[in-house]
């Protein structure tokens, strides 16, 4: 309903939204947006409170690594929210692989938080599935299909043909404020002292 608030910037006679219709955003785009914001949120959390993650997962001493992953998540989020969202979501999928590999190292038998690691792994696997669905969705939706493009070979724009169009507007007088340096031909037949003068 942001449009309702923004009406304060409009004048009395400007059109104002009564009800909204279909959007240019598809389901895959909305999923990308949600995952992008999820990345930003997770990234901020990892940057601000890494010890909460390490403590919960029995990975004390790995705070710097978690912060680095936080920076990585912010990167994923920024790209996923940009027009390059397929790149953003596929980078998230790659990041998920890294997260899973890192969590696997914490699945040791001597880790007292092994159960938490299992829950985290299940969550990451679930998010990975969403990431793959989203990445495939936006890639399909926004790619140029392969195959021959349409032919525009006959779209000259010149009803009388290109050859007769060449120079057809030579009668046009370029306004003085848009003139440039003269062509060589225009100055070569002038006396040398004249050549130095402004055109």
């Amino acid at each position, binding site marked *: 309903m*942001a*449009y309702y608030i*923004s*009406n304060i*910037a409009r*004048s*009395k*006679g*400007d*059109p104002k*939204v*009564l*009800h*909204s*219709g*279909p*959007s*240019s*955003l*598809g389901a895959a*785009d909305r999923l990308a947006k949600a995952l992008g914001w999820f990345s930003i949120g997770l990234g901020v959390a990892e940057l601000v409170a890494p010890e909460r993650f390490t403590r919960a997962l029995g990975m004390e001493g790995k705070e710097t690594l978690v912060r680095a992953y936080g920076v990585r998540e912010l990167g994923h989020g*920024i*790209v996923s929210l*940009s*027009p*390059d969202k397929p790149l953003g979501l596929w980078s998230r999928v790659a990041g998920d692989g890294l997260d899973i590999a890192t969590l696997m190292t914490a699945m040791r038998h001597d880790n007292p938080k092994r159960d938490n690691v299992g829950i985290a792994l299940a969550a990451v696997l679930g998010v990975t599935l969403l990431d793959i669905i989203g990445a495939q969705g936006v890639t399909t*939706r*926004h790619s*140029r*299909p392969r195959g021959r*493009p*349409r*032919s*525009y*070979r*006959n*779209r*000259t*724009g*010149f*009803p*009388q043909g*290109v050859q007769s*169009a*060449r*120079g*057809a*507007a*030579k009668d*046009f007088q*370029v*306004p003085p404020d*848009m003139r*440039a*340096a*003269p*062509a*060589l*031909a*225009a100055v070569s037949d002038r006396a040398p002292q004249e050549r130095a003068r402004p055109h």
Partner: protein
Amino acid sequence: MRALVWHGKEDIRCDTVTDPEIEQPRDAIVKVTSCAICGSDLHLFHNFIPAMLPGDVMGHEMMGEVVEVGSEARGKLKKGDRVVVPFTIICGECDQCRRGNFSVCQTTNRKKDLADKVFGHATAGLFGYTHLTGGYPGGQAEYLRVPFADATHIKVPDGIPDEKVLFLGDIFPTGWQAAVQCDIQPTDTVAIWGCGPVGQMAIRSAVLLGAKQVIAIDHLPERLEMAEAGGAITINFDEESVVERLNELTGGEGPEKCIDAVGMEAHVSPSMPDTVYDRAKQMLGAESDRPHILREMIYVCRPAGVISIPGVYGGLVDKIPMGQLMNKGLTIRAGQTHVNRWTDDLLHRIEEGQIDPSFVITHTVGLDEGPEMYKVFRDKQDSCIKVVLKP
């Protein structure tokens, strides 16, 4: 009425909105018969242009029939008149308008205080664009209020299809001005980066103005094919070096005139590392525009040449080679288009059959399909080059 409305990044919706109303005596209401999606609408779609608000009606390429006229516009317009609406709103009376510099009209930007702070000095009001240019509702809608309508219109005769004259409101004069401000000489090579709609119009304009050779640069096969159909030599930057090929085509001297019909969203490719750098900075908000084309033009342009910039830039760019620009004595001409400065002449050329701008239309759909067409146009799907909407 129905209108295409901006709700946020990549979120355009076909909404039901209130009808526009006459506010000032110089206003008129136009029933839109045709409108189009412009490449610069994509900058808004991506939220790269600041100061858009949810609820803003999109669109700045439109034409239609006058259905209501304010008391002070009646001398110039009447109900039933068929008009193309230029994307720049002009008063026709201020110092800049009297000089023909319509895109920097001093009167029509109703958010002048905001624009003064951002731009230093406000520019003209624009339809369907940012609140920095007045936040005027656009014409991708069934009806449009035209402020300063007595000056802000181009009357077109009956009998010419909408498709032939619609682009007088933006892309045709934009491509034309891009070529005109190069002051093309018969010995000139004109290189044009970007074969989207404005690039295609710039190619035709350079051909009409008598350039020795016109070179068009892009990487999409269908756009290059359309450029070639219009008389250009083409360079596919995915397949060959733009700089090497341009030098080869100009005897090692470089093109005299360069036109940037791409603007702030240059294509990103690992083979052009500066584009990756720009994209990363743009995502982080550390740079608003991706100026790869500017860098390449400054590098390859012949000394004392002209660089013409119709492509839209929104804010700050990085790593512009000022040393090359200064030492080569290049002239840069940029700006939004002074639409009404050119339209009488261009309408005449259309009527004469010198040019038919409808060649660029690849898709015609109803307004309801508009949101999906934004995506198709942005993603260059279905060989899309220009979308016309029929409200």
